[in-house]
């Protein structure tokens, strides 16, 4: 006799009651979350809320990749880490925090730096990849791997008081990163968090938006940011949504045949 392994563990389901109560998610959406594998690259400012909310939401399998360790200046915004985990690898610290929130999520913590040698392997088999890295070369590397694997790439980025969020997905007629931003800015134009500073709650705002977009995408709720770039200026209260599109001559994704999302 063939046994069916239940999707949810005993005692797990009640924690998702507020999601199940939502018409747009419900039981079927919660089951989809449970069956989903997500790769999150970066366990820093943006990775913190993304990982915490996706763990809390019951995403079945979460892989987190980061080669950095927790330092004191991270704690002003990287709320997944804590004082008692200083100097610990961020991937490990993040796994401890996620297990504390929801022990029913299978978390793989990789103390590694995304590079040309491991990007393809990391992306393979994932339903969704989330870019929470802190530099453009890594973002382009991850973009190329996702384009080749036809995996949607939910991308967030921040700068001082502002953030951007979009869903790159050329396999489903949305642009890839290289369509939208083909040129990497010259050295010094786009200062990093260390030299330019970043307001502590900003990655919380942008990262929580990314987590919400991931939950929408997985459950099929509402309208995703596919083909739309959201920009949020927290300092001045300006926000804009820009309609974006694939570039026919994009060197990264021009060979990818799009389909309707």
């Amino acid at each position, binding site marked *: 006799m063939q046994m069916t392994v239940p999707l949810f563990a005993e005692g797990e389901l009640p924690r998702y009651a507020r999601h199940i109560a939502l018409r747009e998610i419900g039981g079927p959406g919660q089951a989809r979350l449970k069956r989903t594998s997500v790769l999150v690259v*970066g366990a*820093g*400012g*943006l*990775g913190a809320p993304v990982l915490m909310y996706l763990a809390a939401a019951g995403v079945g399998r979460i892989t987190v990749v980061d080669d950095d360790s927790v330092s004191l200046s991270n704690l002003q915004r990287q709320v997944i880490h804590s004082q008692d985990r200083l100097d610990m690898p961020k991937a490990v610290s993040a796994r401890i925090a996620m297990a504390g929130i929801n022990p029913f999520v299978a978390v793989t913590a990789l103390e590694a730096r995304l590079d040309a040698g491991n990007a393809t392997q990391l992306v393979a088999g994932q339903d969704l990849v989330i*870019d*929470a*890295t*802190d*530099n*453009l070369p890594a*973002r382009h590397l991850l973009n190329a791997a996702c384009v080749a694997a036809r995996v949607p790439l939910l991308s*967030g*980025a*921040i*700068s*001082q008081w*502002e*953030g*951007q969020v979009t869903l790159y997905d050329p396999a489903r007629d949305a642009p890839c990163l290289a369509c*939208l*931003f083909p*040129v*990497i*800015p*010259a050295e010094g*134009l*786009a*200062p*990093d*968090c260390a030299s*330019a500073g*970043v307001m502590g709650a900003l*990655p919380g705002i942008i990262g929580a938006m990314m987590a919400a977009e991931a939950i929408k995408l997985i459950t099929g709720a509402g309208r995703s940011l596919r083909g739309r*770039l959201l*920009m949020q*200026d927290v*300092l*001045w209260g*300006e926000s*804009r*949504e*820009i*309609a*974006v*599109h694939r570039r026919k001559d994009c060197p990264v994704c021009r060979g990818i045949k799009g389909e309707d999302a």
Partner: protein
Amino acid sequence: MASIDVLYFAWLRERIDAPRERIETEAGTVADLMAELVARSDRHAAAFADPAAVRVALDQQLADFAAPIAGVAEIAFFPPMTGG
């Protein structure tokens, strides 16, 4: 003369020190307008010193620097953000 709202994001906003301004212009294209902006102040010149990585949206639609701006109400300039 057309009156256009110009929005700046990220390092452009920081260099110009304002999130938006209203510009009276007779510029025909985005590139013409950028040349006018560069001549406006040192801050504008610094913001557009290396526009290669800057993108532009006309009325919330991605466009390029050669696009005409007749009839456009809002132009947003934005670069890729990098931090995480």
